[in-house]
C-alpha cells in the first residue's frame, strides 16, 4: 500500500501551491500568525472550475522536464482537471464531487441503492464501535439527502450548477467531508487488524490514536490508508494518477496510476469495473485534484495491482 513512486517530499517546486504540513514543536504554547500557506489555501475555492491540462503545464513552465513530459502524456489521456483547495480535505472533497457528479450524470439509481446499503453498514459499524448516534447522524443524513436530491425525478432534484454550488458551500461541503471521515474511521477501526501494520509503518501510533488525530479531525491530510478504507467501506473504486518526478528504469517517461478496488469485489464485478473506476484523482505530493478522462481514449495501463 506504500506509494511505490517514492515521492520527493522536499521538492519545493511540487509543494508550491500545495498545502502546508504543520510542525509540532517543543514547548507548551506560542502565539503565531496564520501561516502563509494557510492564507494562500483560503484564496482557492473548495472546488474550482474544469480547466484544461495546459493550466497544469503552466505551473511547471520553468520546471522539471520529467514533469512537463508527464503532463503532456496526461494531456493526451485526460480532458480536464478540477482543482480543490489544499486545506487537508482535498482527497475527501475531490471524492465527494467526483462521486456525486457521476451520479448526477449517469442517473444510476442502482448505484445509489447499492451505496445506501453500504452507508447503513457504516452506520451500524460506528454504533458497534461505541460512537454516540448524535455525533454522526447529521452527517449521514446530509449525504443521503444529496443522493436523493441528485437523482432526477424527485421533487427536489438539483442541477449541475447547484451541485457545484453546494460543493463550494461550507455548510454542505464540509459536512460531507466529515461524513467521509466518519466512514473512514469506522472502517479502519472495524478492520483494525488489517490496517494496523500500515498505520504502525506510517506514523508509529495505535489504530485508535491514528483515527483520533489523522482521520476524524477536519484538515488532516489523507494517505493511502484513508483511500483504501473509504473505497472499501463504500464499495467505490478510485483511480489515483501520480504526477511526480519518478521515472522508469528504462529511461522512458510514463505516468503511473493505482486503482483502489474495494475488497469483496468479486471477479465478475471486477471485470465489469476493471475498465476504469469512474473516479479519477490526480495526486501530487501532498495534494489531490480531480481528473476527467477523455471519453474516447483508453488509458494506457501501467497499473500496479
Amino acid at each position, binding site marked *: 500500500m506504500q506509494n511505490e513512486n517514492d515521492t520527493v517530499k522536499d521538492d519545493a517546486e511540487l509543494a508550491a501551491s500545495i498545502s502546508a504540513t*504543520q510542525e*509540532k*514543536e*517543543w*514547548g*507548551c*504554547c*506560542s*502565539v*503565531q500568525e*496564520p501561516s502563509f500557506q*494557510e492564507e494562500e489555501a483560503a484564496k482557492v475555492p473548495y472546488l474550482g472550475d474544469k480547466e484544461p491540462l495546459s493550466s497544469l503545464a503552466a505551473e511547471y513552465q520553468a520546471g522539471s522536464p520529467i514533469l512537463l513530459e508527464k503532463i503532456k502524456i496526461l494531456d493526451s489521456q485526460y480532458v480536464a482537471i478540477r482543482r480543490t483547495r489544499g*486545506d*487537508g480535505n482535498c482527497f475527501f472533497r475531490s471524492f465527494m464531487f467526483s462521486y456525486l457528479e457521476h451520479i448526477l450524470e449517469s442517473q444510476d439509481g442502482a448505484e445509489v441503492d447499492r451505496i445506501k446499503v453500504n452507508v447503513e453498514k457504516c452506520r451500524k459499524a460506528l454504533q458497534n464501535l461505541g*460512537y*454516540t448516534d*448524535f*455525533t*454522526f447522524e*447529521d*452527517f449521514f443524513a446530509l449525504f443521503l439527502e444529496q443522493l436523493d436530491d441528485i437523482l432526477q425525478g424527485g421533487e427536489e432534484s438539483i442541477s449541475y450548477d447547484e451541485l457545484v454550488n453546494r460543493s463550494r458551500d*461550507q*455548510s454542505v461541503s*464540509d*459536512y460531507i467531508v*466529515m461524513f467521509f*471521515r*466518519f466512514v473512514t*474511521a469506522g472502517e479502519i477501526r472495524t478492520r483494525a487488524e488489517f490496517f494496523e501494520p500500515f498505520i504502525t509503518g506510517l506514523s508509529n501510533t495505535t489504530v485508535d490514536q491514528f483515527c*483520533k*488525530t489523522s482521520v*476524524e*479531525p*477536519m*484538515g*488532516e491530510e489523507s494517505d493511502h490508508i484513508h483511500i483504501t478504507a473509504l473505497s472499501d467501506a463504500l464499495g467505490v473504486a478510485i483511480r489515483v494518477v501520480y504526477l511526480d518526478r519518478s521515472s522508469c528504469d528504462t529511461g522512458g517517461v510514463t505516468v503511473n496510476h493505482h486503482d483502489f478496488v474495494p475488497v469483496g469485489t468479486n471477479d465478475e464485478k471486477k471485470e465489469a469495473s476493471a475498465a476504469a473506476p469512474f473516479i479519477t484523482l490526480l495526486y501530487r505530493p501532498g495534494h489531490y485534484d480531480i481528473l476527467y478522462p477523455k471519453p474516447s481514449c483508453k488509458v494506457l495501463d501501467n497499473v500496479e495491482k
Partner: protein
Amino acid sequence: MASSAAPSQKALSKIACKRLQKELVEWQMSPPTGFKHKVTDNLQRWIIEVIGAPGTLYANETYQLQVDFPEHYPMESPQVIFLPPAPLHPHIYSNGHICLDILYDSWSPAMTVSSICISILSMLSSSTEKQRPTDNDRYVKNCKNGRSPKETRWWFHDDKV
C-alpha cells in the same frame, strides 16, 4: 490545521442547535462522573462544575468550566476555559486558558462536551505538580485584550500530564 477563528458571537446554526439539544439530553441522562452542568436557559454557553478526582492533587477541589459554542458547532470546536480561579496545573494558564490538543487542532465533530470533560479531568488527575506553565506571565499578558484561546497557535508537547 489551526482554527484561528474568534469565538463567534453569532447565534447557533440550526444544525448546531439540534446537536446541542441532543447533547444536553444525553448529558442529563448520564453526566460524566465528577461534573455538574449548571442549568441555564442559554444553550450556547454551558457552565460546568468540575470536582477533582479522589486520590489526585485536586481531590475535593471544585472549579468551573465555561464552554462557549460557535455558530458552526460541531464543525468548529467549542471554546473551553476555566473561570477564575483556574486550577494550578502545568497546562492551565492563570487566565483560564487550557493547553489541550482536542480543544484546538485535534478537535473533531466525533467528540462531545462529555468527552472534552473527561479529557480535562484526566489531564488534572495525571498532574504531579501544582504549578503554572513556565510561560504563564508572557502568555497571559498577550491575551490581555480578550484574545480567545482559539486564536492561539498551540504547541502540544507533553502526553503525560
